[in-house]
């Protein structure tokens, strides 16, 4: 017997957790001497009040969709992939190599190639921790953390010693050629007399991210592999009994996860920066953790949570611009969301389960 109705598990608990995080964030804003209501108003107008704001919100949301899906897929196999940051960095390396070495005739072909390259590089970076977890029992959380740092060192080395154009002081690659520039929302949706999304970085990769949400949903709930991943995540012994190989599932789930994290690079490296710089991910890999937890590891949940975090990111940037509240407020909110939806889940869940059990008893 279920302890509570499904809707409570899927909607009520995340909402209560979010509410708790919001209340605490408001207290933090109060404590540093600002008005939380004014702050929220400013965030809403800054992030959602114009197509420019939306352009940034959706750009950030695109990043978070990829990294959120990456964490979510791994969660289904009960693996905690904390290495999205490193995998996304390596994805950026793949995109940069593809864009700089091959003269692409058109952006659409370049985008397909970049998707493949970024996914391949991201997956490759997840492959070693996956192999070590599956075959040697090395804890995936620790190895993926270590691989984040190693990725940063690899990227640093590649940019400073190999890919930096001659004579440049800046540790970054050359700009990608014109033909690889992805269409931005501005060029896609503006008409001659009505320019929208002016100067905002949102680009066509947003739709790739939405497509990725669908593909992941179909994969997890509509394919045999997805079933095996979920079965393994629910019970390893049960899965083994059903003839599912833990080694195979661990490695495949991590490859998909790493590939998704790597694909973030088509948005931030190819779509926005149009070159590879140091620290291109800016923590988006870690936000994927909050997004996946908040979205209950369901692609639609991830989509909504990514939008929410996109809003928080753009709103936070506006706050930093117009008030004394620094951008780091978003990091605090992100921490609180991870805390309440992840670590303190039982704190919200236990009293609710009691409540629902009590209500059911009275009904009988």
């Amino acid at each position: 017997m279920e302890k509570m109705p499904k809707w409570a598990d899927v909607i009520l608990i995340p909402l209560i957790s979010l509410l708790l995080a919001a209340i605490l964030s408001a207290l933090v804003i109060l404590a540093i001497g600002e008005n939380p209501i004014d702050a929220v108003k400013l965030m809403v107008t800054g992030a959602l009040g114009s197509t420019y704001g939306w352009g940034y919100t959706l750009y950030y949301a695109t990043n978070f969709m990829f990294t959120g899906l990456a964490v979510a897929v791994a969660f289904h196999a009960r693996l905690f992939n904390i290495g999205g940051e490193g995998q996304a960095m390596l994805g950026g390396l793949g995109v940069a190599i593809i864009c700089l070495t091959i003269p692409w005739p058109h952006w659409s072909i370049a985008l397909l190639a970049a998707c493949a390259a970024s996914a391949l590089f991201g997956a490759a970076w997840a492959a070693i921790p996956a192999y070590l977890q599956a075959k040697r029992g090395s804890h995936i959380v620790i190895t993926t953390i270590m691989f984040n740092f190693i990725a940063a060192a690899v990227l640093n080395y590649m940019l400073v010693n190999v890919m930096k154009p001659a004579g440049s002081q800046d540790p970054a690659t050359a700009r990608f050629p014109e033909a690889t520039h992805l269409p931005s929302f501005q060029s896609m949706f503006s008409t001659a007399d009505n320019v929208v999304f002016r100067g905002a970085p949102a680009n066509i990769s947003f739709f790739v991210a939405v497509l990725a949400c669908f593909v992941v949903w179909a994969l997890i709930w509509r394919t045999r592999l997805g079933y095996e991943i979920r079965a393994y995540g629910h019970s390893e012994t049960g899965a083994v009994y059903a003839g599912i190989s833990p080694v195979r599932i661990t490695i495949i789930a991590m490859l998909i996860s790493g590939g998704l994290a790597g694909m973030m690079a088509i948005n931030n490296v190819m779509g926005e920066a149009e070159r590879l710089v140091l620290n291109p991910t800016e923590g988006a890999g870690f936000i994927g953790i909050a997004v996946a937890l908040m979205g209950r590891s369901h692609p639609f949940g991830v989509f909504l949570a990514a939008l929410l975090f996109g809003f928080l990111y753009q709103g936070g940037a506006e706050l930093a611009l117009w008030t004394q509240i620094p951008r780091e407020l978003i990091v605090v909110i992100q921490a609180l969301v991870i805390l309440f939806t992840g670590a303190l889940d039982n704190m919200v869940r236990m009293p609710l389960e009691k409540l629902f059990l009590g209500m059911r008893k009275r009904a009988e």
Partner: protein
Amino acid sequence: MEFFVTLIQVLDSTIRLSTPLLLACLAGLFSERAGIFDIGLEGKMLMAAFFSAAIAAVTGSVWLGLLAGIASSLLLSGLHGLASITFRGNQLISGVAINFLASGLTVLIAQSWFQQGGRTPSLFGGGRFEPINFPFAESLSSVPIVGPVYSELLSGHSILVYVAFLMVPATWWVLYRTRFGLRLRAVGENPAAVDTAGVSVVGLRFAAVAICGVLCGIAGAYLATALQAGFVKEMTAGRGFIALAALIFAKWRPWHAMWACLLFGLLQAIALRFQNIDLGGIVIPVQVMDALPYILTVVILAGFVGKAVPPRAGGEPYVKER
């Protein structure tokens, strides 16, 4: 002779850089030996670094700063305990949350209190831990070999450095020679057995997490008030994770932890001093030195060079049988 002088300088810097790693590593050792994984060492250090520097800057007393640092780190430890012991949540996720909480709150509060772009004012005078000079350090420094080793390498560190290295035998003694230590190790291997013996699993684990908080607090205070003079944004720079790496490298044992931290400190000191190292034609780039602690840890974890096996009940919340 020039080589010798350089060697002494690098080793001296190794000791300074190893100290925060060692304190954080021993902190993690207590927690993980009791079965509570802690990837929030970084966050606790960062929080302590900020509060120690902030209070030291405001009051002018580094000792009050140290206390404030320890208190703030303990608070985060309490949160970790609440999430992972009381509410039996995921210890890893709780650690991640604590890291972000510290990284955001420190800058937020620093900006609100000092308006210096997320840093504290520079500390001077009584606001910092001063180096302690051993007796006769000055007069012995001219003696060849022994002189520089005594006066440069061993003498002239702040008190927290000596505290950190004294914590190694102390940790060993507590873990292996006291009843508390035996129980603490047992609770990380087989909490049900400890419970059967009538000892509180929850109490022991909270005690371990609290010790972890105190040590992380000292580590953070050392960073901001001894190694450097004041707090800057993200000043822990991954040290909490290097300490975690050292802990695995040491296979959760105190003396080995010291050697692992000294090794990783040495790597940091070399990277700091030499940048790219030219070994007769083969240049080792500085990034290799940066990444080496992590690479070594992965190799150790992979079990190719002696397998690292964590405490058996690590990461598992304890549910009392009903």
